[in-house]
């Protein structure tokens, strides 16, 4: 049981029910962070729209996106987001060893190449709230300005989602293995 009851469709106005249907149409399993965010439907729709942008139109490669999301979910200890994105990460071909290293919150030297850079970027911005000149330069060599902006924006979005999950204690589906 999460710390607040899930929002329910029944109590909503017709307009809010439309938002509900739109938000949950793209999200399996019900529950999840939107079961909390939907206590404010007009607000929730904007976070869902941002997330849909990343899913459907992002300039970042799927694998780059999932590395950032899994790293962030692990740092925030957002179990629900981890389970969803672990499934996606497997689907798009991220190596199981990488996923296990993320799960174990392994040191950076357990990662290589672009994955290592993205894990370092995510952890550093989360914990230090800034990037050193060296780290920024390495990111800039790998990513265009637009992709850099997306990487930062994606991390910000998943901090929001992860924090909602963590602080309201939104449960992952029963039986799921997280960390």
């Amino acid at each position, binding site marked *: 049981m999460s*710390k*607040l009851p899930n929002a329910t469709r029944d109590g909503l106005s017709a307009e809010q029910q439309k938002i509900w249907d739109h938000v949950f149409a793209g999200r399996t399993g019900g529950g999840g962070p939107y079961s*909390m*965010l939907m*206590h*404010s439907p*007009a*607000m929730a729709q*904007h*976070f869902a*729209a*941002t997330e849909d*942008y*990343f899913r459907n*139109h992002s*300039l970042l490669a799927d694998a780059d996106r999932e590395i950032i999301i899994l790293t962030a979910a692990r740092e*925030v*200890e*957002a179990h629900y987001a981890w389970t969803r994105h672990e499934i996606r990460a497997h689907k798009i071909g991220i190596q199981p060893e990488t996923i296990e290293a993320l799960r174990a919150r392994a040191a950076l030297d357990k990662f290589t190449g672009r994955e290592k850079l993205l894990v370092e970027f995510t952890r550093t*911005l989360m914990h230090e*709230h*800034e*990037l050193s000149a060296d780290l*920024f330069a390495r990111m*800039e060599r790998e990513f265009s*300005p*637009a992709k*850099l*902006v*997306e990487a*930062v*924006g994606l*991390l*910000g*979005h998943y*901090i*929001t*989602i*992860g*924090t*909602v999950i*963590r*602080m*309201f204690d939104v449960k992952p589906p029963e039986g799921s293995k997280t960390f």
Partner: protein
Amino acid sequence: MSRIPSAKREELSPEHQQIWDHIHAARSGGGGPYSMLMHVPALAGYVAATEDYFRLNSALSDADREIVILAAARELGAHYPWMRHEARARQSGVRSEVIETLRAKGSLAGFTARENLLAEIPLSLLRDHRLPDDLFSRAERELSRRQLVEVIALVGHYSTIGFVANAFELPAPEGSKTF
């Protein structure tokens, strides 16, 4: 000088120029986080829509919101958002003592119970991504469900904004006093 150049309106498609105009109509000065986000106009549009929701339709009062934002901006060390929201906080009637205490990262002992709650929530979320039980109980007593969810999401939104300001080293306008 920020780490990457600001996006330029004249380089955008007509559709993206519309997003630009919409975003800048409600924001003075230019040069803020949206000058970076506009490297990805569609994403900038969604992020701005989220922010507009908080400004125009939120269940939180202006003063409540500005305390949350200032505490978040200070904790993140984000100068540009601090500067903009210090001005907004004053306009919204946030007490000078509150602003100066947040600026100095001082003790919250002189705050009213509500000011204290609204400052403690972002500080706790940005450090631990959760609220200790007593703070959660205070939040639940003091805020409606919708307000509670909105406060959490507002901190998330300003994490995105603060990360953009810091990752790209956005300077606050010359001569502005931040912290």
